[in-house]
């Protein structure tokens, strides 16, 4: 018995029966101050709907590719949904309106910027201008809660040494965006080239909104 296989042709050649796809969905900057404009850009295989799902909002129909501008006043989760008869695809993206919340910033030692020489481990963590509002300023910094290392930190022309558990106001008023040079002193038993080395360097950063 040889069965007819009606789905093979569209699957292999025309893909008329394919579910839709989303190739990208970005909101930038996504760490913003109230009143900032945020640009949404998306690229999907067909038109769809964008909605604010947290807090709940009404979906807006959009073309397959496009951009839009919004001015959020509170933290929102955006959702792009693309659907057709054969299925659907979705993506989420968040926009955070900064309120001084402490945010961990850092980088992995797998980053190409990482170096380890003697007892000093260093990386550069970059807060890209695309992601952070130009109005986002540093309120203060603190050591990560469970980090036992002493850090040396450089950013926006300011240099600070930060002890474990310590805090600093030295960067207050500087832009969050930009390069953060983080280096730490290895502890006894931690050795370059081994798994004993910390896998991330980081700090807590209170981001506030300036003028």
């Amino acid at each position, binding site marked *: 018995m040889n069965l007819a296989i009606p789905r093979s042709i569209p699957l292999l050649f025309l893909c008329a029966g394919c579910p839709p796809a989303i190739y990208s969905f*970005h909101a930038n900057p996504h760490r913003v101050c109230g009143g900032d404009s945020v640009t949404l850009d998306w690229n999907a295989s067909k038109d769809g709907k964008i909605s604010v799902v947290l807090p709940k909002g009404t979906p807006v129909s959009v073309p397959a590719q496009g951009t839009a501008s919004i001015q959020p006043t509170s933290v929102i989760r955006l959702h792009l949904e693309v659907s057709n008869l054969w299925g659907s695809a979705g993506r989420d993206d968040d926009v955070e309106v900064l309120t001084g919340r402490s945010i961990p910033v850092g980088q992995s*030692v797998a980053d190409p910027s990482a170096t380890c020489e003697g007892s000093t481990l260093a990386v550069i963590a970059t807060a890209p201008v695309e992601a952070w509002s130009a109005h986002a300023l540093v309120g203060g910094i603190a050591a990560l809660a469970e980090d036992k290392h002493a850090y040396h930190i450089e950013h926006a022309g300011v240099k600070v040494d930060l002890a474990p558990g310590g805090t600093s106001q030295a960067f207050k008023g500087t832009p969050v965006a930009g390069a953060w040079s983080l280096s730490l002193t290895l502890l006894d038993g931690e050795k370059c080239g081994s798994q004993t080395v910390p896998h*991330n360097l980081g700090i807590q950063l209170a981001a506030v909104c300036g003028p």
Partner: protein
Amino acid sequence: MNLQELRDRVDTIVIVMMENRSFDHLLGSMCQSQFGGRADIDGIKSMLDPNLANPASDGTLVFPFIMKDGPLTNDLPHERDFVAMQLAPSNITGGPTMTGFVKAYEKATGTSGVNDPPPMGILTPPDLPTTNFLAREYAICDRWFAPIPASTQPNRLMAMSGYTERDNTISGLLPNQDTLFQWLDAHQVPWRVYSAGLSFFTLMPRMWPDLLTDRFRRLPALSFDFQHEPDATRPNVIVIEPDYDDSPVHLSGHSSDNHPPLPMSFGEAFVRQVYEALTSNPGRWQRTVMILTYDEHGGFHDHVPPIPVKCSAPPGASYPDFTSTGVRVPAIVVSPLVKRGSLKRANLDHTSILALLADRFGQPGVPYSDAVAARATAGIASVSTILDSGPPRSDIPQIPSTAIPGFASLQTWAEPVNAMSNSFATAIEQFANAHGAPALEKYPEIAHWLAP
């Protein structure tokens, strides 16, 4: 347990392999005081440990966070290239740092601003009543790895064959590799497969004749068979399959393999059904070893680096050798032959099950295969090494019958959305073409897919 004890005390080996979750994601929370306080387990001891964080592309660090079970917005990346990115090796640490899961997710999904990216989410016991019960009552393996750092097809081929002829999941049928079933036949060991949906072995043409025999049965038959089947016909090796999310048809209306974006709830109900069936015959249960594990991590973070075990590409392959195992996956040995609440830290992967088969049913001292022997030489132990000596436990812990939380939309059929689901669709079509009426008679749900 030594090999003589193994042969004396184990009659039935049961293999249950779910889909796409990492160890830390499912079991990592158990070492926290509010979720069991299992300080012996190498899980997420502190959510604030800087070593566990993963950087995002906006310069922030993402720490593990507790997520509620539920449908995810999308799948997570887990093909070879993305796994390499997730492992994030560094000369500074001399190996994988396990810090690339968030960036891999951002790259794969074309997004960059989710505050709680799913790869860093960990589930907790209230959302995993069955998994948590089995982990509490039996033995957790916290060094069980996917055999290779890649996706479903190569890892399941490793599980069923001890080697793989591909390094990624691609559309189309699986290669006709030798599987454990041919090995068992050669050693005259009866085996059977019970499936909650369409079997994964539908993807392998050499298995199609077997799919039409009573060696392949529906999951609801398991309980009756386990209770009432006479010794003369009962199988010694049982593979129990969930309803795979990548299958285009689901007779029960939903899948149960735990593959994201599917929530865990249906898989939890599936595993509970399996446990209840196996323990419904106390005498036979006393001589049974069930292994519950996952084919690979599915893109979820785990903090334990894979271990260096080489897996050579086959002759003529266009891809490089694998130099390590994949990411650590959940694994629980459920049997009266392990102590309650015990921990097994031997290095294990899916080929450890094949080694167990050889230990139990093979010629003494003869490995399952050269490939599995090579992995043993590289440090991958047999499951037989983690079974406890001494008499079996007489207790049969009763699994809670409480409702399992979680939800998902019912979906009796779906159009393929990725290489794996395309493979299932292709397999169904070709299986039906090759075997016609008998195939449709035994698996009527495939007509749902084939109908215009």
